[in-house]
């Protein structure tokens, strides 16, 4: 049993580090995790689900705005990108945030092509992140079910 836990813990640690190393996450996520304590056990999951809901909604908005043939309301797109940027930096979704910065620049430059490309990338990226995080939570659950403790991961 202990061996299983240890293995799972090892796996979890490696996975988390890989997430950081691949640039999916940054320090903000660590901070977020620190805020989770006994008073709010599902804080991180809660926040993340809010984030992904946001992503869906905002990306939909942007796609609709960019689908408009003829006149594209870049300011509306920009506002959504800004929101997304804020959300992603709050949760520590590093890649999404980076994309949003580029996206916003295209928006401000009224670059339709760039915007569309970025939108697609953001869509891909947040879905990838969702998958990864889902995997991580699954691992955590397994550890807890195995009677172990989710280890603190020191990124540095």
């Amino acid at each position, binding site marked *: 049993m202990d061996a299983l836990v240890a293995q799972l813990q090892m796996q979890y640690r490696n996975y988390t580090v890989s997430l950081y190393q691949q640039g999916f996450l940054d320090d903000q996520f660590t901070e*977020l995790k620190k*805020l989770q304590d006994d*008073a709010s056990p599902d804080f991180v999951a809660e926040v993340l689900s809010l*984030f992904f809901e*946001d992503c869906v909604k905002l990306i939909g908005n942007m796609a609709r705005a960019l689908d408009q043939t003829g006149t594209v309301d870049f300011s509306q797109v920009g506002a959504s990108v800004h929101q997304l940027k804020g959300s992603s930096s709050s949760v520590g979704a590093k890649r999404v945030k980076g994309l949003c910065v580029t996206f916003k620049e295209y928006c401000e430059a009224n670059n339709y092509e760039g915007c569309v490309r970025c939108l697609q990338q953001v869509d891909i990226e947040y879905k990838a992140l969702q998958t990864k995080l889902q995997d991580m939570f699954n691992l955590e659950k397994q550890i807890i079910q195995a009677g172990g403790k989710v280890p603190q991961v020191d990124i540095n």
Partner: protein
Amino acid sequence: MNWALNNPNPEGKEPRTTTQSSDFYHLSAKDSPQKSRKIDFWRSGLMGFAKMQHSVAVKMNNGNNNDQVGNKKGSTFIQEHRALLPKGLILWTIIVGFISRGIYQWMDDTSKVRREEVLVSMCDQRARMLQDQFSVSVNHVHALAILVSTFHYHKNPSAIDQGTFADYTARTAFERPLLSGVAYAEKVVNAEREMFESQHNWVIKTMDTGEPSPVRDEYAPVIFSQDSVSYLESLDMMSGEEDRENILRARETGKAVLTSPFRLLASHHLGVVLTFPVYKASLPKNPTVQERIAATAGYLGGAFDVESLVENLLGQLAGNQAIVVHVYDITNASDPLVMYGNQDEEGDTSLYHESKLDFGDPFRKHKMICRYLQKAPIPLNVLTTVPLFFAIGLLVGYILYGAAVHIVKVEDDFHEMQELKVRAEAADVAKSQFLATVSHEIRTPMNGILGMLAMLLDTELSSTQRDYAQTAQVCGKALIALINEVLDRAKIEAGKLELESVPFDIRSILDDVLSLFSEESRNKGIELAVFVSDKVPEIVKGDSGRFRQIIINLVGNSVKFTEKGHIFVKVHLAEQSKDGAESKPALNGGVASEDITAASKPSSYNTLSGYEAADGRNSWDSFKHLVSSEELLTSSEFDASSNVRLMVSIEDTGIGIPLTAQGRVFMPFMQADSSTSRTYGGTGIGLSISKCLVELMRGQISFVSRPRVGSTFWFTAVFERCDKCSLKKPTVENLPSSFRGMRAIVVDAKPVRAAVTRYHMKRLGISVDVMTSLRTAVSTASGRNGSPLPSGTTKLDMILVEKDSWISTEDIDAEIRQMNSRTNGNVHRKTPKLALFATNITNSEFDRAKSAGFADTVIMKPLRASMIGACLQQVLELRKARQQHPEGSSPATLKSLLTGKKILVVDDNMVNRRVAAGALKKFGAEVVCAESGQVALGLLQIPHSFDACFMDIQMPQMDG
């Protein structure tokens, strides 16, 4: 405004009225020169007097005028009548001309009178002498007549004949010098003619022809004659018309009678014939004419040579040549006959004198007229006096005129200057006003700019942008500081700066100032230290802001101009410095101090950093006096006065001030030289402001400086003693009291620096022993030398080591390590903590320190009590607490800060909101969220219970 203006009449009018009236007199009195002369004289005297007064008044005007420089409408009498000045000059010239003329006339008249008097006296004298001579001659003739009467008629026969008579008369001729000769003619009536002729043997002849006389009633033939006139014998005197008349008149009157003048036969001189009657018998008293005629016996006659008579006479008298004399017979007044004198010789016709002559003949009248031969010359004194007077008068007039013109000009210039001065002052005021206004106007927008920059810096900026913005902010702050200085300067100039009086803590102010410059001084590697004497009260009353400003300015200058060495700020009572420092003369780079420099060069100086300082006052010799005097004197000595006079000195070892520039250091906008501002920046206004401020604080500011050695500025300021008053707001950094009663050893070879350290430690309540060598300190601490602490204290809390002392002591590291390890092993004894003081420290030094056991702490200079306190706190007591909170104590403090606080978080982004809320909740805060500005505003309606509100600055609809 001045006397002459108020009373213009006394001087102004008098001369003119005098002139007019005297002119009037002059006109009316022309006929009598005597009178007019007098008036002229009186007038000239009065004029002179009036003019004198006038000139005096002029001078007084002038003086008054000079006194009353400030008066704007200072037009004087002269000023008002400037147009009359040339007319006045002309009038004055005319007046002087008149006076000169008057004087000339007066002098001329005087000389004429004198001349006349001389003439009169001369003439009268001549007339009298002539008369006398004449009468003497007449008397002789009279005597001759009596002789003839006596010896010819009363003797019978006659005692006289022609021979006797001729002989006698010739011999007595000297008595009758004027008579050419005398002859006697007997009265012969026609009846007796024949008998007479026969008796004498000649016939009576007429005078004209010499023929025998025709028959007449009566004859007067000459019977006796002097030899000189012997040709007259036998001639009938009555045959001549004039002679006959003479004879008749003579016998009627019984006196000598004269003919009118005629040319004498012999000499052709003008002459007269004198006839004297001879009576036969003595006449009764008061005889009638008939009786006389009847008694007449004959006639004695003689010819008077008047011409020679007068000539003789004049020859006898002095001054003969000067006058011309004429003698006239004026019996017939309408046709005066000349008796003497050349008619052609007129002489000076303007002046003559008549003298009456009485030759004893009642029928004939004579007069003498005298004239000067030459015209009266103009006297020399007149010739000199009058032109001289005229010239002087003209000169005086011209001088007065010149003076008046000059006064007018000076006054004009004066008014012009005054006006210019007023304008210049106005311009100066306007300049200050303009400067103040402009500065103020610049300050307002600048504050806006700075605020905006500060806000801009708070936003998300790229590093380049941030750099630009920060630069802009720094520049803006510099500009604001400059403007404030200019405003200060203008305020001080306008006298509008007022000092406030609030209690403040000098030491904390100095600490603040120190902390301001700590960064810069540390970068430069300068020791920056402050020392406040114990005598200085904790809290004084005064203008802390201005006090701070002065010190910041001075210290700022020192930091600016110092590249190595130290800056040492020292505060003590002014009374103390008198005791300690007056023995040393302060020389600004003089020769004497050069000698001192040369003498003491090899050894290190007893100053804070070991560098030489310009003023010896802060060196250890006098400083220890100051420190020791603190312990000796009781503070009660100074308690009597309610004021406390502080002396602050700021010593640096910078570039110093060139000797040539030392004089103008405190002048506004002056720096040592223009290259200074290029090298170091600054406007040079700071010192002048400091000087003004110090003077406002009833103090003085001065300095001692030696080029390339350093400067020491010092100033005094008077503050109110404020023992009882406490600070309203607690000092920001209250010194921790946890160190009270602790003991420490300070290891420092430099006594001044050690004293400074001790001062700071003392403020923390730590008693300090100073040791000069680290080795002794270490051995003391490790107890190898038994119990060597001077005070016998066993408890030692810390050893504070100056970096220089540590570096210079070789091979000490091992001993320190040993000591540390030994004491660590000994549980019972508390380890003395080691701390290192350093101004700046290199990494290698730091590593070495760590290895040597100074791991505990390195206290960076400049020393401040609060900083030492904080560091020591870390070292001594809070080590455990630090371990509990590796990131420092901030989370704990945050928690205590936020617990129970109600906070509103506004963000449209749900994720953000959630994170923020979570974070805040973690620290115990109660969080309320709002997703938009409107909702937030609704929640924030007053009254609300929120302690804080965090808001996203960029939100749709309504941002932060």
